[in-house]
């Protein structure tokens, strides 16, 4: 295989791992509550800003700010679900779309008021540094982020499969009435679920902050990618986020290498469109199409 192709695939995988991490929360929230969270990108934005300010004021490395972003976004997500979204649970889905769209506008605009439209970035000692292995370039920051992203996606899966709360979340996703009969306070489970989804999304925002442009308006683009990744992997199926993320990452990278960068954006939408028409349950067929 030629080096260009291998390099393109590696770039795609590195990108895709990150896509997976920030889409897993989107998938979780949809899977449990049926909420398509249109304010998803704002969670990433808040995570990235958490990392940015910790770097500015305390010179804290973006990777070490990840736990802070997680705690902040968990609290934010928990409160949003508890006091806002819980009011429309059980109503037609359109209500939650409107509400999360409103949330998207509100959070983004408040952020613009506070932080202005400026584009910001974090420059660390390792920014731009590459590991050169067998003639391939692997940027350190992206590699670390990739590893953290995989670990986070696995961690979420582990939490859902192995803990009492995780089991209750899965039960609630499948049959909320029966879950209640088992003693599950589903409104609290909803809040924890949104908190968890927001926490891993915020964490992803923090760990991508070393190599992305941070601005209050960055969110929407990420919401779109998360939506596409989750459709690819199967709505509501968490490991699907990994499959969808890696697929989309590689597809975009190949398109950028062999066609051009503009096409790589179009590819996202072409894939999204084709999936929705041909296989709406996702690549693995385990998605939920309610």
């Amino acid at each position, binding site marked *: 295989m030629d080096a260009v192709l291998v390099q393109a695939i590696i770039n795609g995988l590195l990108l895709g791992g990150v896509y997976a991490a920030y889409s897993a929360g989107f998938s979780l929230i949809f899977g449990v509550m049926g909420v398509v969270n249109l304010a998803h990108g704002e969670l990433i934005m808040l995570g990235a800003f958490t990392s940015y300010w910790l770097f500015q004021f305390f010179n804290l490395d973006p990777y070490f700010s990840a736990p802070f972003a997680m705690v902040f976004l968990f609290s934010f997500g928990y409160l949003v679900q508890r006091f806002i979204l819980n009011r429309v649970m059980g109503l037609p889905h359109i209500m939650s779309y409107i509400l999360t769209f409103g949330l998207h506008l509100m959070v983004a605009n408040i952020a613009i008021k506070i932080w202005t439209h400026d584009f910001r970035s974090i420059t660390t000692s390792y920014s731009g540094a590459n590991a050169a292995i067998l003639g391939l370039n692997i940027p350190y920051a992206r590699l670390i982020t990739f590893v953290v992203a995989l670990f986070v996606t696995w961690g979420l899966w582990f939490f859902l499969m192995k803990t009492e709360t995780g089991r209750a979340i899965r039960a609630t996703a*499948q*049959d909320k009435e*029966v*879950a209640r*009969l*088992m*003693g599950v306070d589903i409104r609290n489970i909803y809040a924890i679920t949104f908190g968890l989804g927001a926490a891993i999304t915020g964490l992803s925002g923090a760990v991508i902050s070393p190599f992305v442009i941070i601005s209050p308006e960055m969110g929407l683009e990420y919401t779109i990618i998360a939506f596409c990744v989750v459709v690819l992997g199967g709505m509501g199926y968490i490991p699907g986020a990994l499959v969808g993320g890696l697929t989309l990452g590689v597809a975009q990278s190949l398109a950028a290498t062999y066609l051009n960068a503009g096409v790589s954006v179009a590819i996202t939408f072409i894939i999204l469109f084709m999936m929705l028409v041909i296989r709406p349950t996702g690549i693995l067929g385990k998605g939920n199409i309610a």
Partner: protein
Amino acid sequence: MTEPLLDIKQIDVSFFDVRVLHQIDLKVYPSEIVTVIGPNGAGKSTLLGAIVGFQVPTEGSITFKGQNITGIAPEKTVQLGMTIVPEGARVFTDMTVMDNLKMGSYIKSSRALRSETLEMVFSFFPRLHERMKQKGGTLSGGERQMLAIGRALMSRPSLLLLDEPSLGLAPLLVTKVFETIVQIAATGLTVLLVEQNVHFSLEISQRAYVLENGRMVKDGPSHEIMDNDYIRKSYLAL
């Protein structure tokens, strides 16, 4: 006479403007098997719904262990010691048999007794032990019913409510399910069984209530109900 475990007094239940249950009275004493029989649409499931808290009675009261539980939320009733096997089993199809059972002991009081209760459930249903790692959705209808009963037992209830456990099962399995209910009751558990399978329910229960069009039309010891002319004609086709 001992105090009833469950005491329903004169409840009315409505869906929007339509009254589904009219002045229902029902008592269940400790260690009894009580059955509520009646045709489809009589309001049997609604009655259970009102007991566990999915429907709120507009009139009357429900008392459990001497405590007024009228209108209490479903997630609270299980903590007081009553669990329901819902109609159609409703096992968690994407979860393993083991996870379904663990879900049954989600409440703190039963979580502490989990491994011991699991052993008891597996002794009633060895099949569930064999299928421990399988997804709920891969089980047969009979196995799902067993799993739903096992899951309910996992919460260590003092009152077990069963909603049509024989629904949709092959005759051989129906017999098996009723036998199991008798075995479970023999451990001292109190059972309230709602059924369309009148013959078997009257056979295994001590007392019975007959629900028609949202009203209790008859009640009494099961053998008397079984000998009643009206019941023999309308329900047993004898």
